[in-house]
C-alpha cells in the first residue's frame, strides 16, 4: 500500500473526523491513525487538513438523526460551516469514515455546488493497492473513475 499512484496526479484530499469516532470515543489517537493511513495512500503532500480538526473538529450536521429529522433547511445551514472548512482546503476529495458524515457531506457538495467528492477509506485503500474493481467506483470523480483499470 503506497501513494505512488498519486505522485503525478497530485489529487488533493482532506479528512472528516467523525464526532462519534474521534471526539466522543477514541480521541486524537484515532484521528492520528486516520492521518497515518491517509498520508500513506494519497501522499503526505496531497493531504490537506481542515481547520480546526481532530477532537476540535466541527460536526458536519449529519449526526444525531439530523439527516432523518425532516429539518433539511436547518441541516444545510448547520453544514455550511463544514462546507466552508472543506472549501478552504482546496481539496477535491473528502474522506468520510462515517456513513452519516458521508451522506451529509455529499449533500453539502451538491447543494452548495462545492464540486468535491466524498469517499470511504476502503475505496482509496483498494485504489492504492490496484485492486479496486470497476463497479466499486460509485463515489469517485471522473479523474479516478477508470484509473488503474486494464
Amino acid at each position, binding site marked *: 500500500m503506497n501513494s505512488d499512484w498519486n505522485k503525478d496526479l497530485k489529487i488533493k484530499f482532506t479528512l472528516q473526523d467523525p*464526532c*462519534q469516532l474521534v*471526539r*466522543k470515543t477514541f480521541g486524537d489517537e484515532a484521528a492520528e491513525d486516520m492521518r497515518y493511513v491517509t498520508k500513506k495512500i494519497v501522499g503526505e503532500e496531497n493531504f490537506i487538513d481542515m481547520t480546526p480538526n481532530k*477532537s*476540535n*473538529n*466541527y*460536526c458536519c*450536521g*449529519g*449526526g*444525531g*438523526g*439530523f439527516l*432523518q*429529522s*425532516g*429539518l433539511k433547511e*436547518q*441541516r444545510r*445551514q*448547520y*453544514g*455550511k*460551516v*463544514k462546507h466552508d472548512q472543506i472549501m478552504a482546503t482546496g481539496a477535491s476529495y473528502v474522506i468520510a469514515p*462515517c*456513513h*452519516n458524515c458521508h*451522506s451529509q457531506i455529499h449533500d453539502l457538495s451538491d447543494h452548495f455546488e462545492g464540486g468535491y467528492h466524498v469517499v*470511504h477509506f*476502503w*475505496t482509496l*485503500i*483498494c485504489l492504492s*493497492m490496484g*485492486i*479496486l*474493481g470497476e*463497479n*466499486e467506483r*460509485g*463515489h469517485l470523480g471522473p479523474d479516478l473513475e477508470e484509473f488503474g483499470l486494464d
Partner: protein
Amino acid sequence: MEGSAIKISGKQKSAFLNKVKELLPDGGNLSACLTCGMCASGCPATGMFDMDPRKFLRMAALGLDDEILKTPWVWACTMCQRCIYVCPMKIDVPQLIYNARASWPRDERPKGIRGSCDAAAKVDSGSAMGLTGEMFTDTVVELLEEVQEEQEGFDKLQAPIDKKGAHFFVNQNSREPQMEEDEMVPLWKIFHTAGVDWTYGSRGWAAENYCMFLADDEAWEKNVRLKSDMVKELGCKVWLNTE
C-alpha cells in the same frame, strides 16, 4: 444572530432543572456555568430556532421548562459534544438535549427518525431500512460469487456469515446492501488481503441505530442487544461497527 431576551413569567417549574442538576459536575451545582459562551460561539446550530447551547442551559437553570422542552432546536443539535470539549466546566449540554428529546411525546418526535427506529424493530437485522437477515444474506452470497468469478485474483475472496469463533464481528450499514452493494466489496478485499478472520451475522448485521437519536431508551437497548447477542452467540472477540 442575536436571540430575543428570555422572559420569565408565571410559576417556575423544577422537574427538568433537577435533571440538569444531576448532570452537572461537582454535585450538580448549576453555577458551574460561567456563561462564557465558548459553547455557543463554536456550535454550528447556534441561532437556529432562536436558540444556542448556552441559552438552552441558562433557560434550564432558570426553570423555563415549558420553553426548552418544546423548542425544536433539540433536533437541530446533533449532540456532537464539541460544546463539552470547549467548556471550561465540562458541562454536558448534549445530555440535556437527549433528555429534552426523550420528554417529547413519542408520536411528536420527527417522523423520519421514528420511522427508521420502528423499521429496525420489526426485523431480525436491526436494519433501519427494514432489510431482513435473509435479504442481506442473499445479496452478499450472490455478490461474492460474482466477484469470485469475474475479478482476477479474488477467486478465493470470502464474505463469511455466521462464522463461529471469528475474531471480528463486522456490522454493515444498510445503505450498502440496500442501495450500493458494490461498496461492500472493497472492505472484503482489504480483509482478505490482510488475512483478517471476520464474519457478518445473519441476524443483527445492521450498523445503524436510529432509536438512540429518537431518545427511545427501550428501543435503543433492544436494537443494541439484538446485535450484541449475535456477537456472543458466534463467540467473536471484537465487534467492529462501521458507523
